């Protein structure tokens, strides 16, 4: 809103964030689960003096180093960079409200990365006791990162009493927080099992394949129980109107949530069958199928969760375009363009020019004329008057914020959209 908008003709902000975020959640949850997997498997191998299993564990730990410490860490920062470019006001609010929460998360990040480096580079060089101790440190660091970030993500959807009392704790311990922690921890365990099949598919030793396969199976089984339980609980923890949207009220949302559940169920059946019944048959094809299914399932869920929050960035506080619910009536009187000097820069002082400035101030953070969340199919063939009328009832769609601004601004926006979409003048 008050910031310049970051506009690139071919890439929509939402797509950019999504492509980085999906990669990141897939890696970061794996990093949590695999942390537990590796240290527990190491304990098991040491206890049974199973040195072949220990070698398998070692390879798994290299996956954490090369995937999570590099790609995971930097895509995490990447989400932050990209959301700050696309919606600086929303990012700034989340940073401000939870700054010491983020700082605490950073402390666990420091622990996670330091422990990971110490763990990986001391294999076979220090006592097993100390090595296992470091393994647990890694898991604690990774797990508590999840515990903190889950609170902030859940806050966006269910801020609860924060909207009235504005304290850290009422924002953090919100209604959908614990269900998120349980569900996400479940996903972490599943992903650890899924990634381990990748290492298993290259393992020649049949005995290790069987032992480690069963071990992965237990992770997957516990993971599925926590995931399904957690996300069922999550759905129940949401306000009635959002529950309604997820169960039939909104087609896209309902489908995304269903696809997430069905693909997760499919993943459960296939992975449990391979890890428990025929672990020796695990090969690269199976591993890749499991990975891709996992990615789809998780991706659908994250999309559903993000969309369920629409039209807000922070429920009932800030709309997706950065406008605060509390400033709507003021902006309706003074005009949306009174809030920012940015969007009018370099545009002609005409009706169309004003309309484009309003478009950039209010619409472009989610919509493009053509392409992602395109406006063209919605307004094709409408006249300028029709579009202007249409804009008065945007929020009849529960996922859309109302048009904010003066009547002149609304008419200017209609003229601009009509020109871009229908070639009007």
């Amino acid at each position, binding site marked *: 809103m008050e910031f*310049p*908008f970051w506009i690139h003709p071919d890439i929509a902000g939402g797509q950019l964030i999504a492509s980085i975020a999906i990669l990141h959640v897939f890696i970061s949850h794996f990093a949590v689960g695999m942390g537990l997997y590796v240290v527990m498997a190491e304990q098991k191998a040491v206890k049974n003096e199973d040195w072949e299993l220990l070698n398998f564990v070692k390879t798994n730990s290299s996956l954490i180093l090369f995937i999570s410490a590099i790609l995971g860490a930097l895509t995490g920062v990447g989400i932050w*960079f990209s959301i700050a470019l696309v919606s600086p006001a929303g990012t*700034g609010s989340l940073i401000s409200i939870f700054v010491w929460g983020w*700082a605490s998360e950073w*402390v666990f990040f420091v622990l996670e990365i*330091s422990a990971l480096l110490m763990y990986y580079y001391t294999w076979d060089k220090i006592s097993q006791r*100390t090595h296992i101790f470091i393994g647990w440190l890694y898991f604690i660091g990774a797990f508590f990162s999840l515990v903190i970030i889950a609170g902030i993500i859940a806050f966006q959807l269910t801020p609860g009493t924060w909207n009235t009392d504005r304290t850290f704790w009422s924002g953090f311990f919100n209604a959908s927080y614990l269900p998120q922690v349980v569900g996400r921890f479940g996903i972490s365990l599943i992903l650890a099992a899924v990634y381990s099949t990748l290492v298993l598919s290259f393992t020649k030793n049949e005995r290790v394949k069987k032992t480690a396969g069963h071990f992965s199976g237990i992770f997957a089984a516990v993971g599925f129980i926590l995931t399904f339980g957690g996300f069922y609980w999550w759905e129940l923890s949401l306000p009635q109107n959002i529950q309604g949207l997820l169960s039939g009220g909104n087609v896209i949302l309902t489908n995304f949530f269903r696809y997430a559940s069905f693909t997760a169920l499919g993943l459960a059946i296939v992975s449990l069958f391979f890890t428990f019944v025929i672990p020796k048959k695990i090969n690269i094809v199976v591993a890749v199928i499991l990975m891709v299914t996992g990615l789809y399932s998780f991706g659908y869920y994250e999309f559903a969760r993000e969309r369920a929050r629409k039209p807000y960035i922070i429920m009932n506080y800030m709309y997706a375009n950065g406008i605060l619910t509390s400033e709507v009536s003021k902006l309706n009187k003074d005009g949306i363009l009174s809030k920012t000097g940015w969007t009018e820069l370099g545009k002609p002082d005409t009706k169309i020019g004003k309309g484009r400035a309003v478009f950039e101030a209010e619409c472009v953070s989610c919509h493009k004329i053509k392409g992602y969340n395109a406006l063209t199919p919605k307004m094709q063939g409408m006249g300028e008057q029709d579009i202007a009328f249409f804009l008065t009832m945007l929020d009849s769609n529960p996922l859309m914020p109302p048009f904010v601004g003066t009547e002149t601004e609304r008419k200017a926006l209609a003229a601009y959209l009509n020109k871009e979409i229908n070639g009007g003048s």
Partner: protein
Amino acid sequence: MESINLIPSFLPIGISSPPALFVFFLTFTFFLHIIFVNLTLGGSLLLLTSKYISKVYGDNNYNMIAEELGYLNTFNISLTVTTGVAPLLFIQTIYGNFFYTSSVLLSFKWLFVLAAVIFAYYFYYLYKMKPLYIRYSGGKGIIFIVFAALLFLYVAFMLVSNTVLSTHPEAWKEVYLNKRAFFDLPTLLPRYIHFVFAATAFAGLFLMVYSRMKKSFSKELKEKMYSFGKKSFFIVTLAQIPVGIWLLLSHEKEIMMLLMGGSLLGTISFIIALVAAISALVVIMLKKDNIYLLTGIGVAIIIFMVLIRRVIENGYFSKYVNIYNMETNPQWGIFAIFLLLLLAVLGIIGFTLFKINRELKPKNK
């Protein structure tokens, strides 16, 4: 003034602690970050230099210095990223309205920083592990370090650019309308060179210390590593004097004067840093180089340069806003938890490193 109209206002929520606390943590965590930045960026440049020397003079010791730097830098990159998150968090908390705006103006060029670090990091691992045919190739994968160094130079340039652009709101409009290039800002080039040189000098100092610490190196290698580090430190620090003056003069007069009487902290820090740098050069010229003394001087220079940086940036920002006027809505509970966690985690990491060190030693004997 039009630029004032373009600066977004503070968020209405208020910040969760008095602003001074954020300034303190910003400065402290930036100090940690810049140490690893110096080792990573300066180390990459010294790695390439020593590899070049080993090629030209056929001296394998320099090749070993390059390999050692390649091994160490994977850790440094990780720690640079890890320590970099905290200052980024605190700068956004108090100067978000400036920082977000300049980030948006840099857009893809800013976002590409992350891709650059990811690629550079993997390039370093290719050099370190030398998988497949790389270990049999002529350059032993040095080409990857050439790429990595270029990427790090790019990353440093963008971070300097973002800082400079955020402190110059009067240039935003023209940059936004593509009438002016962001790298046209007056302090940007000297500031960038000053940073890259500082990184190289510090990495040279690190090599001096490291050569004395490593027991497993041959005497010859230790000596060569020490003198290579010393030469790098000396030459680059000497070059910092004209570059530093250039940077100083590139600031507007009122900002420049902050270091010469305008600000007490700025003036004291400036004098100490200057005296420290000159005394380091003198100590080396007189061949009285004591490793503890030089390390102390090096760290002192960084501390006071970080303080100078804070004074300068604060000087620019305070032309437009006073962060101390920000509305505060203190949340002390979570702050106390953060502080305890920080101390606990630093303690645990220290304890674990101590334990590892003790268990590793018997094998070296």
